[in-house]
């Protein structure tokens, strides 16, 4: 039983949880795997894997418009998964949940379908300096096509956003604010509810990139009030190749479709096509049914454990790691926002992150090194990248100790 200091109610059986994740018992370089690359992708509990196996072994079928039993069964399971996503983020209706390949595709869908009609010459799109390339490049591409301007809100030295600075950048030309809920590089948790309120006061549409947030904290899109919220299942203990977006119904209804093809049409003639209702209008082609079911199973799994329990333990891991890292004068933590999720980006002396990562890997520890798809942020910090250890609720303090040992070895070798 692991314990959360001062919060016995939020304890859970860490050994039992770890046993749910088959990969955690594997060895790497002859050492038990320590997986600290959770911000890149999370590991999958057995129930998610079993869901895929059961689907393909007993239910696999193409959905919608099918009269036969398997198709009916698969369709209701697929729509059931959509309902699970809806409930998880607290959207009003399943019409507001669109499945995509992942968070990147979700943002591109919005850039294309919403952006194509709502961003015009001279308009501005506001983002922050800590955005992932997936919430930056689509807007760059859109601005280029529509002759609009991309405005970048800088971040403070600790990696947090100064709301006054952000509000100051919201002009009468700003049409969209696209900002991350949690930074995948620095861990900063942005106050998205306040930010949305500020933007809405000026009539600005708000997109929150939730790729990093959904696994760490209870997301409530109606409470946040945002217009769009995007996510990837593989970062929430679900399968790869599936993700999606929440969008307010009236905005989605007004948007033109994205891709053309099967599923997204109501009536087709060679002359004229009428598009299907929400959410299908945005889901061209055979959907990833197994992926959606696995996503649903993952959300069920973490809901059963409880997001409050999960974040309590993750915060404890963050606190412990921060304490241990801070005791080593050679380690420099990059990103110290007051509200931070369970990841630490850091540098060891002037050792290149790539060198450090190579040696840490030899200890069977998976950390990520590099720019974490936030090159502009690295440029502005004047560093070639960082080493990033990102924790999930199945990680332990002993694993953090093992990382410290590896870091000491790195220091020995390079300094």
């Amino acid at each position, binding site marked *: 039983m692991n314990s959360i200091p001062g919060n016995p109610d939020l304890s859970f059986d860490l050994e039992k949880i770890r046993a749910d994740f088959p990969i955690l018992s594997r060895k790497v370089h002859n050492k038990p795997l320590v997986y600290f690359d959770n911000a890149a992708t999370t590991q999958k509990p057995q129930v998610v894997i079993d869901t895929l196996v059961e689907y393909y072994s007993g239910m696999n079928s193409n959905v*919608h*418009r*099918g*009269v*036969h039993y398997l*198709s*009916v069964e698969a*369709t*209701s399971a697929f729509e059931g998964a959509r309902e699970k996503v809806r409930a998880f983020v607290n959207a009003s209706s399943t019409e507001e949940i669109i499945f995509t390949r992942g968070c990147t595709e979700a943002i591109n869908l919005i850039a294309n379908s919403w952006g194509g009609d709502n961003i015009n010459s001279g308009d501005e799109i506001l983002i922050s300096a800590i955005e992932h390339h997936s919430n930056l490049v689509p807007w760059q591409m859109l601005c280029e096509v529509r002759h609009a301007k991309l405005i970048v809100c800088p971040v403070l030295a600790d990696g947090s956003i100064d709301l006054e600075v952000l509000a100051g950048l919201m002009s009468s030309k700003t049409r969209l604010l696209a900002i991350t809920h949690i930074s995948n590089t620095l861990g900063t948790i942005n106050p998205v509810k306040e930010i949305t309120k500020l933007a809405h006061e000026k009539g600005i549409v708000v997109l929150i990139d939730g790729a990093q947030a959904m696994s760490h904290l209870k997301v409530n899109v109606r409470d946040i009030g945002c217009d769009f919220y995007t996510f990837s299942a593989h970062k929430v203990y679900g399968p790869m190749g599936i993700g999606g977006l929440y969008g307010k119904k009236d905005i989605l209804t007004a948007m033109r479709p994205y891709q053309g093809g099967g599923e997204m049409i109501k009536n087709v003639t060679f002359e004229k096509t009428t598009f299907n209702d929400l959410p299908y209008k945005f889901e061209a082609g055979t959907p990833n049914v197994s992926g959606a079911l696995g996503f649903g199973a993952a959300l069920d799994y973490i809901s059963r454990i409880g997001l409050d329990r999960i974040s309590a333990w993750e915060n404890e891991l963050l606190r412990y790691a921060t304490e241990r890292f801070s005791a080593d004068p050679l380690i420099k933590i990059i990103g110290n926002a007051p509200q931070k999720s369970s990841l630490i980006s850091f540098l060891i002396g002037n050792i290149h992150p790539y060198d450090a990562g190579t040696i840490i890997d030899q200890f069977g520890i998976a950390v990520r090194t590099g720019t974490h798809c936030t090159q502009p942020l690295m440029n502005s910090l004047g560093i070639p990248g960082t080493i990033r250890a990102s924790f999930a609720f199945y990680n332990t303090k002993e694993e953090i100790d093992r990382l410290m040992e590896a870091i000491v070895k790195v220091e020995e070798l390079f300094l």
Partner: protein
Amino acid sequence: MKIEESTNTIISEFEIFDDWMDKYNYLIELGKSLPLIDEKFKIESNLIQGCQSRVWLHAEFDGTNVHFTADSDAVITKGIANLLIRAFSDHTPQEILDSSSDFLNEIGLTQHLSPTRSNGMLSMIKQIKMYALAFKAKQAMGS
């Protein structure tokens, strides 16, 4: 006959069938025996969305009761339409609005039909209630 009485009759009719093939057979019979809708009512505005097959539903109001006729290009769908008409036709708008469609669950129809067909059935019921609502408003204005 009250709506509830009609639906209870329908439920007991279906209870005697053991397997689904017999239930379908009965639905097909009901479909074949559906009184024909006047061709002039098979128009776009009477078409119901949400069916893989096409369904036309027409309603008339004699000042007291609503009278429904329907047709479909698929016989099983017609059978379902027939059930609904037996239950809801020739009742006052208020009676229709107050009635429930639970009997369809009880005979297992909602579970055993494909989602497209089951959606189609729900659309039909929705349309029936919409008509009732419209006629009720008309009645209120007239009085």
